[in-house]
């Protein structure tokens, strides 16, 4: 793989992420792309724990842990302080899970990007409140089991489209990324770093524990999400210009769902319904990207 970054690590071994944790991989790539002039704002999420218990820190950059819903707000404050001190080099990054982005943290995120605060907000998405024990979030996909959508009450709401919600704020840059596509991820982080204003990255980060997949399948499952059009790789500039970054193989959604225990209750009928939803979303995305369908 050609990552086009300095061969430098900003993360230590010895952290307590689950074996195969996609969030750990995502952070590693993020920091390799951003470098050491970075301050991480870390609202409550799995990484609050992965970041290390007192007095240990997993990361070699400054981190400010923050309350669950404050990712966008604390970053705004850090940025204001840095600007006051005349520091224009340091990047402020909020590193939040789907809970702290889609749900409880949405207000602060929306507020911050509406003000076009100069920071990068990264949501690493494992599609549930994993840190507190796999409860559903508005990022949990249609069809998933979670501890709060168990049995027959599996989630029958669509996954919230967070990128589109932020694109509606007309922010300078929004993009999806995926741990199975590190070159694309790194490129997008580097691109985001060079832009001023609010930048949003939505990173797909598999969770073996919560998705009921073997730990060695994290990357494979993440890759399959892209190949089945469930998680397309695209970016939106200025809330207007859509670019699809990768042409997936367009496997049927079944190929993705069959790999994961959290979906094992779905029938063929359910999968057909999901396939239609995915196809519809993909068509919509193609249209936004200017392709005739």
């Amino acid at each position: 793989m050609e990552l086009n970054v300095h061969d430098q690590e900003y993360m230590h071994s010895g952290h307590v992420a689950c074996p195969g944790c996609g969030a750990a991989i995502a952070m590693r790539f993020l920091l390799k792309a951003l470098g050491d002039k970075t301050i991480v704002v870390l609202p409550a999420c799995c990484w609050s724990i992965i970041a290390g218990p007192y007095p240990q820190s997993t990361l070699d950059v400054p981190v400010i842990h923050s309350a669950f819903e404050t990712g966008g707000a604390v970053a705004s404050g850090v940025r204001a302080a840095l600007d006051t001190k005349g520091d224009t080099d340091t990047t402020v990054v909020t590193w939040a899970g789907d809970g702290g982005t889609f749900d409880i943290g949405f207000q602060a995120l929306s507020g911050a990007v509406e003000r076009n605060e100069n920071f990068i907000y990264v949501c690493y998405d494992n599609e549930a409140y994993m840190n507190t024990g796999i409860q559903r979030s508005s990022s949990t996909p249609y069809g998933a089991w979670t501890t709060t959508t168990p049995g027959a009450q599996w989630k029958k709401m669509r996954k919230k489209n967070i990128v589109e919600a932020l694109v509606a704020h007309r922010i300078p840059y929004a993009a999806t990324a995926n741990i199975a596509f590190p070159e694309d991820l790194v490129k997008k982080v580097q691109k985001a770093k060079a832009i001023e204003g609010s930048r949003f990255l939505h990173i797909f980060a598999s969770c073996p524990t919560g998705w009921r997949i073997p730990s060695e399948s994290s990357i494979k499952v993440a890759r399959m999400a892209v190949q089945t059009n469930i998680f397309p790789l695209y970016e939106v500039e200025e809330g207007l210009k859509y670019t699809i970054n990768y042409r997936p193989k367009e496997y049927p959604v079944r190929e993705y769902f069959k790999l994961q225990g959290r979906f094992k209750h779905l029938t063929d009928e359910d999968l057909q319904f999901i396939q239609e939803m995915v196809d519809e979303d993909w068509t919509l995305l193609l249209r936004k990207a200017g392709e005739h369908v």
Partner: protein
Amino acid sequence: MKRVVEGSQAVAEAVRLARVEVISAYPITPQTHIVEFLSEYCANGTLDARFLRVESEHSALAALIGTVSTGVRAFTATSGQGLALMHELLHWAAGARLPIVMAEVNRALAPGWNIWVDQTDSLAQRDTGWMQMYCENSQEVIDTVLMAYRLGEQVNLPVMVVLDAFFLSHTYEPVDVPAQELADRFLPPFDPKFLLDTQNPCAFGPLVPPNAYMEMRHSIAVGMDQALARFPAVEDEFEDIFGRRYGAVDAVHCDDAEIILVTSGTITSTTREVIKALRARGEHVGLLKVKLFRPFPLEEIRRTLQTAQKVAVIDRNFSFGASGIFAQEIRAALCNTVDTPPVFGYIAGLGGRDVTREIIEEIYTNTKHNEVPEKESIWVGLQEV
């Protein structure tokens, strides 16, 4: 120099003099004028600061936690519901040992909507680790904001400067707005002991297991003790430069008082008048104004009240299921002394209801004519509504 300013502007002037560099606030009546003055100061260059127009009070305080963690002096203001919304982060700011200063305009909590003075909002936050200083007039507000930065930055704890809704926030008073050089002499630049620094990276606020958490809480307690111990010295410095001091408490005619009335906020200035009148009539009455509520000036209060025969506390607040909060704390202060005077607790003025001289006199009379309080809390002036 002396100017007639609205209480809200007094706050803004103090923030200017303190050379605050980042302000983050969300409007709520009756704090709005503070925010508007500060916006204007930032826009016209009177104050060289960044103003974050956040989308809620919770985010306002969250932003400042970020700002002060990065080593820059910051300010916010709120009131009532806004303070309640900040609750979670009040704990956070104190636990993170960040010397944030906030102007808190005492306002009643909903429901029903009530924008007028009531102390329950600030007192409900008395456990958060924030220092609380209650002000009687706009001069005290300006002075207290400056002292708050000085003291807060010494002990690394946040400070709430509390002022009554409308009676202070929207009242115009003549106030000495000090010169910037004097303010600079009193308040040096913020020199943080720790901050987010890419040259020296560490993580703030990580998981702290049982084996270390208690020690950190103890450190906050120690910080509060240090604040209490240092407050007189800060006032010494202040007095040297500006010629004014207030004391953690202000004891008026307490030495020979048989009954001491305990007040805070603007009720105090009315009570001063009542005390004058009563004493003129030969009543042995005194007044203890509580300015510093957190840290609680236990020794001073105990010493001052111990000698009285009775204590009457006027609470413009209430802790449901218990009693008025100042009364609670006073009773606790007196409990380990010999010969403690009975403490009469009076609840008055909630939701902006006026506490008149007559009411205060009534409180005095009631106290005088009862050996012991007939009830733990006496609600004054309840009507048919």
